């Protein structure tokens, strides 16, 4: 299995209410061990997954949102968020967690992982993938 493929995890659902978001994140974390080219995409209600300050106390459901901040340690550097999805929900990128990865070629400088893209730009990103896992 030496071939490197472009894997894309397409997240479309809100973090709670259904299990898709959490079980998608579990695939991402396992998949990272396979050293593939990995991108995460957040569209539609999926953008809510990255909101900062999540509190699930009253839901009785585990708050898994801190896990997103560990993605950089798993070498996940490309997290695409669709601009139109944010705008339709009255959100901006400032409402999202500040996700970073460390650049080992530049003295471990922190780089932003989140890439804000338009619907058209996102279509191009998805078109370039070999494998799209939709959640």
């Amino acid at each position: 299995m030496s071939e490197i493929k472009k894997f894309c995890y397409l997240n479309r659902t809100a973090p709670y209410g259904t299990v898709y978001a959490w079980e998608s994140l579990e695939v991402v974390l396992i998949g990272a061990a396979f050293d593939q080219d990995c991108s995460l995409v957040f569209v539609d209600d999926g953008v809510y997954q990255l909101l900062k300050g999540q509190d699930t106390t009253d839901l009785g459901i585990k708050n898994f949102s801190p896990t997103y901040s560990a993605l950089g340690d798993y070498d996940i550097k490309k997290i695409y968020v669709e601009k139109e999805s944010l705008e339709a929900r009255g959100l901006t990128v400032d409402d999202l967690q500040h996700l970073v990865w460390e650049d080992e070629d530049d003295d471990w400088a922190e780089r932003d992982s989140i890439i804000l893209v338009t619907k058209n730009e996102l279509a191009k990103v998805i078109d370039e993938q070999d494998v799209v896992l939709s959640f």
Partner: protein
Amino acid sequence: MKFSIQVNEGPYTHQASVSALNFIKAALAAGHEVFRVFFYHDGVNNGTSYTTPPQDDINIANTWSALAKEHDIDLVVCVAAAQRRGIVDEGEAERNKKSGTNIADGFRISGLGQLIEAGIESDRLVVFGD
């Protein structure tokens, strides 16, 4: 072409698993190969032998088992998703001290790595779900 299939929904409530079955039958009939079917989320419920629908209804679990036997298809149930939803084989029953097993014929329980491997090894990974 070599396909792998991901099934994200359980039987009966959603169309996804029957659509996946239909897709696989059509792909095989057209001369394609199916490397693996990976069951995730509630999709793991396709793999329980305890399924007993009315006689005039399709038995989806049995349909999967028959398809796997006839075409030697690898049916893999995600272990983490299965543990949450009570799909148990002999190994899991022993590890988690369960009184019995319910994994259907032709299915096996394994890890998410099997899904990633399917994506790497296949020409196309097709996801069935909502």
